[in-house]
């Protein structure tokens, strides 16, 4: 009896996950081998083997979206880490009013990504956006910058929105790490003649690494959130220049109705997301062994 307790306790969780996650996954794996089209429900029985995958592998638009997604994630995660670390170090210096500052810091976390998308679409708008307003009235620029119309600027604008939304996660976690750090090692390093930078580099940073990787793991669990922001701000445009794997997938599935092909894409994106998570989780375990 006692042996079955943990399984019984976990049963509801496993059931709901099986119904909402595993069943759809099995279905999408199956349908990625069919010519399933939303407009013709009977096409789900038309088994076509690996044709969808072969087609994706030959499709340059897909590979561009794939590469762009990885580039986007790399830029965004690194920027969030650096800015978050900076903010955490800054806030750690503060002795008074830190609670208030911490609360302000978490402000962007409460914004729904879709809201962030609209918000930044509004701010970067070339006619009525505040960014151009400030550039023109504050810095005397003559023309308005077409932030969301130019391909390169658009990807930059997307990154800014995503970074604004999620840097707090890093900042809060790293701040918690800094605050939980014992002060003796730093003082010992200072006594031994280390400079502030050396103490940071060789004492503080290694201690913070588990916190860095936990933040990365948490963020990698929700990188697909960027879909909301991209969909609202540019919807993959202009001319597919900001198309990420998720927007391409939604377009193929819901707009073109090619569910089979879209589910093949979905599978590739799931594997990509999991690879990020597993990678960061492995780093986390290694860093923990190093510190504790």
């Amino acid at each position, binding site marked *: 009896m006692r042996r079955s*307790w943990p399984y019984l306790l976990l049963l509801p*969780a496993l059931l709901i996950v099986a119904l*909402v996650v595993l069943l759809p996954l099995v279905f999408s794996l199956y*349908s990625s081998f069919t010519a399933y089209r939303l407009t013709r429900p009977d096409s789900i029985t038309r088994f076509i083997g690996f044709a969808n995958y072969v087609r994706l592998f030959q499709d340059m638009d897909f590979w561009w979206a794939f590469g762009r997604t990885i580039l986007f994630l790399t830029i965004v995660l690194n920027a969030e880490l650096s800015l978050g670390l900076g903010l955490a170090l800054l806030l750690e210096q503060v002795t008074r009013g830190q609670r208030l500052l911490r609360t302000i810091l978490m402000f962007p976390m409460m914004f729904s990504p879709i809201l962030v998308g609209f918000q930044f679409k509004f701010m970067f708008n070339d006619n009525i956006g505040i960014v151009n307003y400030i550039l023109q009235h504050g810095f005397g620029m003559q023309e308005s910058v077409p932030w969301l119309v130019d391909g390169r600027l658009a990807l930059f604008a997307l990154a800014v929105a995503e970074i604004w939304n999620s840097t707090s996660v890093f900042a809060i*976690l790293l701040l*918690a790490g800094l605050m939980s750090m014992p002060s003796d090692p730093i003082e010992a390093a200072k006594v031994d003649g280390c400079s502030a930078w050396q103490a940071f580099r060789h004492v503080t940073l290694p201690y913070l690494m588990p916190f860095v990787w936990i933040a990365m793991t948490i963020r990698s669990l929700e990188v697909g959130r960027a879909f909301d922001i991209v969909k609202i701000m540019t919807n993959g445009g202009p001319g597919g220049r900001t198309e990420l794997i998720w927007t391409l997938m939604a377009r193929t599935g819901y707009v073109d109705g090619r569910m089979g092909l879209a*589910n093949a894409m*979905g599978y590739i994106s799931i594997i990509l997301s999991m690879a990020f998570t*597993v990678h960061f989780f492995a780093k986390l375990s290694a860093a923990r062994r190093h510190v504790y």
Partner: protein
Amino acid sequence: MRKNVRQALLWLCIFLAMGFICMPGLWVVLNAFRPNVAILGNENPLNFSSYTLDNFRNILGLGGIQPLPVLAYFRNSMIISMTSTVMALVVGLAGGYAFARFHFRGKNAMFVGLMLTRAIPGVALSLPIFIIWSWLGLLDTMPGVIMVYLAMNVPFTIWLLDGFLRQVPQELSQAARIDGCTAWQAFWKVEFPLARGGIAAAGIFAFLTSWNEFALASQLTRSPDTKTMPVALMDFTAQFTIDWAGMCAMAVLIIIPALLLTFLVQKHLIAGLTLGGVKG
């Protein structure tokens, strides 16, 4: 003297950083009080004389303009988020307790497996769920959305509560058992109160996730009876234009509950993130 300069610099940096953090949010809040004419005319946003409450009157149907069912959306969002949060806490507490207190076969594999389900992007799931839910007749129903959000929240809830329950010494509940409590009483009277902070943290995360979710809700909900607030934002966009004033007012309605709730439990939120995550 040097110390004062350092302090001043520090506060300047903090002031600038906080300014950057707050500005995008404030911009939306300010525009919720500006008429569309002022927004589209690109008037000086600091000209406060044009500020009105008309946008809120309009979206709530008090201003004569044909109203959107905003109150219904708000109710839907509340029901969906609250229900899925409470259910996620119950299911997650049971699961977290199993992981924190028992050794059993396949424990690590199960834990990692549960967490990995969270790594699946919502868009990738929305396609197959859309089809299966349409077969099961769950499309455009509240239970359909609630179930999806429950499954999304359970793994993270388990993860956080596992971390918190492990902080509660096992000896306490064992002592209660010796004093004659049943296993359930020992949990309910001893461990549950001690893990309250963690439960609050897990709850706020689950609530925020459900409250803010868009990719799945936008496909699984259609009618005013189920549409949630984030999906309703799309009502303000037409093919080529966006009603920025109405959208900003709606945005404020979305943010307020999230802000209130987070500020109330922000202490637990930080503890939840760090305890649940780092003490592995």
